[in-house]
């Protein structure tokens, strides 16, 4: 796949359709992959696409599409939802991006691989239901369901939203996804248990802002947390409860716009399951306003900024026991 992608990128660069390429390149370690922009064909030697390329590149296209010339972007299905959501919010100039959809069969989570005692990782390959991990000690085999990231195990869609061209097979929306199971578990807790659960998770937050910075829904020119007029901009928290407020505010800000790409949880150095907060919102929106997937439809107003006569009454909060 990687070679075919490089070849296609070279073609498009050569015939002048695009002047840059958005993709991924390795960092210090093979699993340490970051999104990268390649300015010409020669730079594409560093282009990688493998099972560590989980990073969502859509957010980078905001700035890239403001520059001169068109950029080629390879988007995985989940990236394409973020891309379409950003289009809806007028953040990306669609004309300036050439989108090639690429399939994704689930990306590996380095933490899970390490937890299996596999170290010195050099590279990764997919073979049927297994990953073959190349290490300095030789090849190791690990079942995919044990090494895949949580978001890939509960993948919502293998189908892209808005692409100019597909490479490889186009997939389907996955109606069977179990992505709300864990949320349902949390819902079943008593308010006190739930509070304890979240206090436990969120109290580990070091407020590095990685979750916000990676989030394709958090694209504000100037984030409220950086705005001295907002009264919530303090970086050094006066109490740990303020950190919780950071996450609650952020969850509200991305409610109805979060595509459930899972980047926030992926980048969190403290392994806080942030996606559960967002999934709770998504689940609620689905239940209260009807099925809604952010990014799936570029024209639709999202339920949080829309009003219809069928909307639930605010009293629903009480009916669901929200006044306890």
């Amino acid at each position, binding site marked *: 796949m990687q070679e075919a992608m490089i070849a296609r990128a070279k073609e498009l660069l050569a015939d002048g359709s695009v002047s840059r390429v958005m993709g991924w390149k390795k960092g210090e370690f093979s699993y340490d992959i970051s999104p990268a922009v390649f300015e010409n064909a020669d730079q594409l030697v560093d282009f990688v696409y493998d099972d560590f390329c989980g990073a969502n590149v859509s957010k980078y296209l905001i700035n890239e599409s*403001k520059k001169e010339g068109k950029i080629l972007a390879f988007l995985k299905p989940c990236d394409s939802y973020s891309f379409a959501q950003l289009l809806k919010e007028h953040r990306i100039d669609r004309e300036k991006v050439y989108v090639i959809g690429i399939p994704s069969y689930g990306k590996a989570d380095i933490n899970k691989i390490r937890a299996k005692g596999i170290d010195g990782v050099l590279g990764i390959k997919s073979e049927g239901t297994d990953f073959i991990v190349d290490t300095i000690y030789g090849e190791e085999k690990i079942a995919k369901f044990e090494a895949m990231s949580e978001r890939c195990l509960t993948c919502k869609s293998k189908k892209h939203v808005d692409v100019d061209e597909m490479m490889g097979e186009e997939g389907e929306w996955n109606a069977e996804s179990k992505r709300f199971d864990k949320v349902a578990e949390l819902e079943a807790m008593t308010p006190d248990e739930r509070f304890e659960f979240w206090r436990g998770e969120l109290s580990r937050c070091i407020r590095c802002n990685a979750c916000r910075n990676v989030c394709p829904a958090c694209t504000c*020119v*100037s984030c*409220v947390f950086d705005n001295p*007029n907002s*009264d919530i901009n303090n970086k050094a928290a006066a109490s740990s409860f303020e950190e919780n407020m950071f996450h609650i505010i952020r969850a509200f800000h991305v409610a109805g716009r979060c595509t459930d790409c899972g980047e926030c949880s992926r980048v969190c150095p403290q392994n806080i399951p942030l996606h559960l907060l967002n999934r709770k919102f998504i689940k609620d929106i689905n239940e209260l306003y009807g099925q809604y997937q952010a990014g799936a439809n570029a024209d639709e107003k999202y339920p949080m900024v829309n009003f219809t006569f069928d909307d639930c009454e605010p009293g629903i909060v009480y009916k669901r026991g929200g006044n306890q």
Partner: protein
Amino acid sequence: MQRIGVFVCHCGTNIAATVDVKKVAETLLQEPGVVYATDYQYMCSEAGQNMIKDAIKAQNLTGVVICSCSPRMHEATFRKAVAAVGMNPYMLEVANIREQCSWIHKNIEEATEKAIILGRAAVAKVHLNAPLIAGQTPVTKRALVIGGGIAGIQCALDIADAGYQVDIVEKEPTVGGKMTKIDKTFPTLDCSSCILTPKMVDVAQNENIKIYSYSEVESVKGFVGNFTVGIKRKARYVKEDICTGCGLCTEKCPQKKVPNDYNLGLDTKRAIYIPFAQAVPKVATIDADYCTMLKTGKCGVCSKICTAGAIDYTQQDEHLEEQYGAIVVATGYNPIKLDAFDEFAYSQSPDVVTSLEFERLMSASGPNGGHLVRPSDHKEPKTIVFVQCVGSRSTVECGKPYCSKICCMYTCKHAMLCREKYPDTEVYVFYIDVRTPGKNYDEFYRRAVEEYDVHYIKGMVGKVCPEGDKLKVQASDLLTNEQLHIDADMVVLAAAIEADKSARPLATLLTASMDTNDFFTEAHAKLRPVESPTAGVFLAGCAQGPKDIPETVTQAGACASKVIGLLAKDHLVGNPCVAHSDEMMCNGCSTCANVCPYGAITYETKDFSRRKDGTLMRRVASVNPAVCQGCGCCTVACPSGAMDLYGFSTKQIMSEVDAICK
């Protein structure tokens, strides 16, 4: 640092009985920036206002806090007072220590503490207040009346009489509304057409009035004084300016099987029709659902008959946009559908009719020229049973909870007219209560009972069964506690009336509020009964609630006077407390525009290039201050906090919250 003066009002004993006003003043004097604090019996009185003015001058105050009743009551009064001595009116804040404090607490200590906290919050806000200057917007000196019933007609005539232009948008081919269908009118029994027709003619001939008949309002943009309204003129397939109203086409059209809605479907009309002789405008209309030419392309009889050449089968709906300063809603009512009231056999027998159908049966312009016969066999009915409150004052789902108000009187009218014209008919009226307040109304009712021998029976009809050519009526007489069985020839149901079905979507277009029954709500039930809470939108007739003709006309006149008051102004002073977006922080994400109920937000792509980063074009929000109503929806929806409201900035509100939580 501001120099703030605090003025605590006793409101007689309204506040002072539960709040220790002296203590409130003394405590607030300790707040930073407060240089003067006092209390007085009636702050809103002239003496009270002078106290404020004098203190501003003597103490060199830069801000004022009044602890009194709700700002809805007297904020304007106090703003005027401070402005009179040169202070910007937006440097004043009102802390509501009456409705939100003294009236809802009993314990003096608690209430006093709360009053102090509320005052402290207001002081905190004033510290961040800045002078604001209200903009002015011009007023378009033309009114739109939606609905051309008697309410719309009267209102339009009164506005036009004052010299302003008025357009009437009526969805039917003619104006006139329900009054055109009514035979005689209570309590004087003069003929409805005779009193309505001259008004319809006046409307047609008035130079200041333009009628858009067979038209609907499609869109409403703008705000008080400056509405832009999209009007759809439905294709009537007849050129309105050419048709002379001769009616030849309506006699020759071969398609005769079209239900005649003027007679409520009791007879038929042709596919091309003029609703009735006095219609305004008197032009023909083709019913596209029935016209053979429009459906199959074959026929064309009317175009051959019409010597004027008015028929145009290719006519399309026309869409136009007009500017208005004020909008009157006069969309009236309709009787409810009776399909759900099976017990009265309405859908089983043609001889069970609604009261409005009965009006047509009695009317000289009705299906039988005014000779009352049964629709089924055209025989004169000898026994007629009237049932009041069908669907009114009802607790079941298919009914309406309210009293339709007019049914007692018109049923009385019907009963009396039957006995008068056909003295050998037996007439029964079943009622729950007879409600006849109003000038000469109870006298009217008593005449029906005493002079015309109408049998008024307190009780409800349980069931009507068509059997042979009779209608078996089972009912109970609650006063004698008897079961009654009446063999009736006709049953007349006084169906509840409800708001027109088009009213709800129209309210959404106008952002005007409605009650749960889809009647438009007034700005104040008692003190502002003809204004909607949406500035520039006024209410007349049954669109606001059930009422009879005299009441409708009175309300329409009142409504016209409010409209004239608005149109007489050259400018409206705007509200300076409007939203504004900080373009350095704005994402251009459209969240704000999505939530703005008034369409006040638009987007521009602006150049934010800096030498260091090269060109940078960004889409940013911009608020039209003349359209913005300061509702604040956008400021809370904006993720980045770029949107803020003058006079209610996030900082001001947070400082109030902080002061309260201190």
